């Protein structure tokens, strides 16, 4: 998936971003887990982390920001939408930039930084919108939701990576296979049909610009 020539890059990104955003919005609005402490807990964080892992910082950033922002818009908190877009979006961007290996240490580092950013960001936004005092009340809730979201995201990513590798090939954690695949492919097909190498190598350079 990451292996796409620049011409097809944009056209194929639009629906991916749009549909994953829609999915994130639905997950945020539909999947409500009742919590003992603070009413409902949604899965937005799980989706934010997941999209950062799966689609890399930039695409993941847009999805992670737009999805929750839309759900704010639709569920009656439009004034929050812009803040949500920026905060959650950057949260995904940070995760995407920092988490480059599918290793606990690396993922924890990235996630903690992103987490701190998020709690901080929502505190500021809350301060602007509803005053600093009330904003403080939210901090604990956000932190808790993040912790759960992180665990789910990790489980999700591990499962998807095993179940359907193409989905995560765009992100940092899935890059290794994609980069190697065009070569394998050309090679494999060469063995099957002894075609001259220049046609075989023709594909990889249309695959240029794998990095977003």
């Amino acid at each position, binding site marked *: 998936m990451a292996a796409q020539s620049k011409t097809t890059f944009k056209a194929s990104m639009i629906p991916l971003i749009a549909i994953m955003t829609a*999915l994130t919005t639905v997950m945020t609005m539909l999947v409500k887990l009742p919590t003992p402490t603070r009413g409902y807990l949604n899965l937005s964080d799980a989706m934010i982390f997941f999209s950062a892992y799966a689609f890399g910082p930039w695409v993941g950033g847009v999805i992670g920001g737009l999805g929750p922002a839309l759900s704010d818009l639709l569920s009656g908190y439009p004034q929050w939408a812009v803040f949500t877009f920026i905060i959650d979006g950057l949260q995904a961007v940070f995760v995407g930039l920092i988490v480059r290996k599918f290793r606990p240490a690396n993922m924890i580092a990235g996630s903690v930084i992103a987490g701190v950013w998020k709690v901080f960001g929502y505190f500021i936004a809350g301060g602007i919108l509803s*005053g600093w005092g009330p904003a403080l009340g939210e901090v604990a809730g956000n932190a808790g939701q993040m912790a759960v979201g992180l665990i789910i995201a990790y489980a*999700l990513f591990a499962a998807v990576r095993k179940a359907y590798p193409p989905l995560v090939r765009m992100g940092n954690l899935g890059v290794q296979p994609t980069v190697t695949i065009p070569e394998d492919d050309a090679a494999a097909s060469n063995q099957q049909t002894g075609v001259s190498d220049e046609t075989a190598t023709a594909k990889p350079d249309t695959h240029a610009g794998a990095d977003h």
Partner: protein
Amino acid sequence: MDADLYVPGDGWLHRTDPRVKFLMSLALLVLCLVWRSWPFILGVLALEHIMLLTDHIPWKNIVWVWRILAVIIALIVVLWPIFDRSGTHVIADWDWLRLTRENLVMAAVMGLRIPALGFACFLTLFTTSQAKLIRGAVAVGMPYSAGLTLATALRYIPVFARIVTQVRDAQRARGLDLSGEGARMRGIRNPFTLMLARARAWVPVIVAVLIRAYRMSRSVGWAMESRGLGLPGVKRSYRVRLAMRPADWGILAVTVALTALAVVIMMLS
């Protein structure tokens, strides 16, 4: 679940050019954020309600907004005095809580500001159809690809609401337990673990949905391209055309004037 807040109708706001409505909402948002005075906030709230009602937005939509925001408003009004101990006209003073006329007024203002901000956005959201919304956004400089992305996302929200329920049903039909009963029966009591168990139960659902979503996004991409998206060297045309009618110019002028007035008064006071 429907992704459209649009209330079909033909009121004056419905007919107003989306770009003008954007400006209106923006002006109100900014003013409400910078100016914390209770007469102003009340004035704005009244104005917003008048605008929506004269546009024949039914009461039930307006009540819907209030109902959603009620909790937060209450929360803010209650919490505000606890953190804000300022003010000279002390009404009551325990060591942990100090009620003064000033901080009570401010609590009311902060509480009312939430709906004021909300309705500022709903002025546009209730009265602008998705197509017009996107079209307007593109007209004020949002790149078309962004507009298309947004429109497509909105379009697929109900689709995925349905798919998620279908997938959830399919998994429950195989005995997957999402209600947490099972975990509780297994004697898990700690609320956090219990909640985690419930959240984890969703993983099979979400994985299946994600795969479906990815497949769908591929073929939607093909559909878009085979409908000529990104055709090189073509300037895109738009079916929905935006034209500023005299009325729109009028409303624009009024908006600007009122905003200016508000700013001046704010400066003086």
